[in-house]
């Protein structure tokens, strides 16, 4: 279809159908969140997106980013000290800072890093269900772009559905369910990093390309991402299993940030 609005509505519909499906049929939290940040970049004017969850130890941890490039991960890890995700998590409300001067005043280190990666305004939206905030969704745009209210509403709605998915059984078994979901997700994320390292060294590719190989294999074999990651890390399956024979060496991948123009 040539009508871009129609196209977006269609994709938006598909995204919510996929999220609803995971609510009904069970899901891998990391995969759900990976899909969520991917949708934010696909559907909105955001050039990059990332999501941090509280680790129940007083820290925020990166769970998914639209680019698995190491420099993107660092931009999120930094936010344990300062940044929009941290403020958003602490207040439970959206944190939107458009002006560079204000960004620098609030988060000197983070704002500098944000600039150096070619981003401008930053948006952080809470993952919150009633009084509980479990994390934050961060959206980045190029310096001359501002997200319209409709985009932010969509992003918040996506974050809300993901939050409900993670906390869905909370009323039944109180705190245990949340701890199960969060700790499982945090640990899966570590296994994914371990597997990325294995694949990266085996196939001589960067970490973001290693993640793509891991994800493609999970999709192709209809296996959960976290299961594939654990099998690779423990060498239960050889890294060659996820690398197509023709993969060129030392490449950087594909679903990366849109160029900041």
């Amino acid at each position, binding site marked *: 279809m040539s009508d871009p609005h129609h196209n977006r509505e269609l994709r938006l519909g598909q995204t919510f159908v996929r999220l609803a499906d995971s609510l009904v049929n069970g899901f891998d939290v990391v995969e759900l969140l990976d899909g969520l940040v991917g949708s934010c970049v696909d559907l909105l004017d955001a050039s990059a997106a990332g999501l941090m969850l509280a680790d*129940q130890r007083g820290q925020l941890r990166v769970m998914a980013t639209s680019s698995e490039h190491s420099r993107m991960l660092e931009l999120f890890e930094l936010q344990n000290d300062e940044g929009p995700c941290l403020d958003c998590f602490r207040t439970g409300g959206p944190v939107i800072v458009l002006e560079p001067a204000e960004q620098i005043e609030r988060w000197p280190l983070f704002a500098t890093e944000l600039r150096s990666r070619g981003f401008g305004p930053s948006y952080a939206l809470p993952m919150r269900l009633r009084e509980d905030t479990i994390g934050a969704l961060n959206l980045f745009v190029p310096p001359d772009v501002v997200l319209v209210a409709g985009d932010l509403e969509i992003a918040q709605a996506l974050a809300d559905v993901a939050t409900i998915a993670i906390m869905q059984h909370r009323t039944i078994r*109180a705190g245990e369910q949340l701890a199960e979901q969060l700790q*499982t997700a945090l640990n899966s994320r570590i296994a*994914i990093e371990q597997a990325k390292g294995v694949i990266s060294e085996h196939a001589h590719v960067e970490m973001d390309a290693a993640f793509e190989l891991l994800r493609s294999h999970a999709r192709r074999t209809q296996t959960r991402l976290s299961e594939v990651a654990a099998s690779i890390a423990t060498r239960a399956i050889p890294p060659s299993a996820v690398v197509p024979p023709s993969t060129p060496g030392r490449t950087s991948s594909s679903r990366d940030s849109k160029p900041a123009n």
Partner: protein
Amino acid sequence: MAAGGGEFAGVSDGRLATFETVCHAAERTLPVQGAWVSQMSSGGFGGLVYASDEMATRLDELQFSLGEGPSVTAFSQAHPVLVDDLDGRGSVARWPMFADAAVGAGARAVFALPLCIGAIGLGVLAMYRVYPGTLLPDELSSALRLADISAYALLDLVTKDALPELITADGKGGMPLDRPVEFHRAVVHQASGVLVVQLDVSIEEALARLRAYAFAEGLPIGDVAEAIVARSLLLER
């Protein structure tokens, strides 16, 4: 005080010091009466590493002999299992033999936290209390931090044959844990994965080698990990 049993019975006190500290910290700071650490692997129970008292030892033995219980579930599912009432219907349905025996022994709640680092499964830190009730968010937070410390101490213990010189490096029983935030950095775990291939070792040993190198050189583990991922540092095979 009950000491460690199983295959760790002969391990010098220094190597168990961390577990002793963790279990007693749990007992002092959390609403629990005792704690214990069991080593486990995909093959099953590896043995009791440390137990703070007789009841803790008994609860470990019960799970070992029955093959079921909160620690077994926590390890196989790799997530915390917080049982606020062992006498409740849910617990009895989940672990019919263990729940009955544990309540008979005087325990009413058990909190089992898996000691795992991504794909590395090491064991379980468990705590019991003699009355029902769950952990509050702050208490869970402390318990998880104690589990993190135990996980790295257990990593040292299970890789001790591969790295004999390192465990005694501080003369007491293990390497100190860096700021926890360092261990949660993605690059540390990416570097472990790189080392699996470079050194042809298990993921456990890869992380232990990374940690040992950082400790020996007096560098933050994150800096060493960055150098490994950038391929500017090669560890000897």
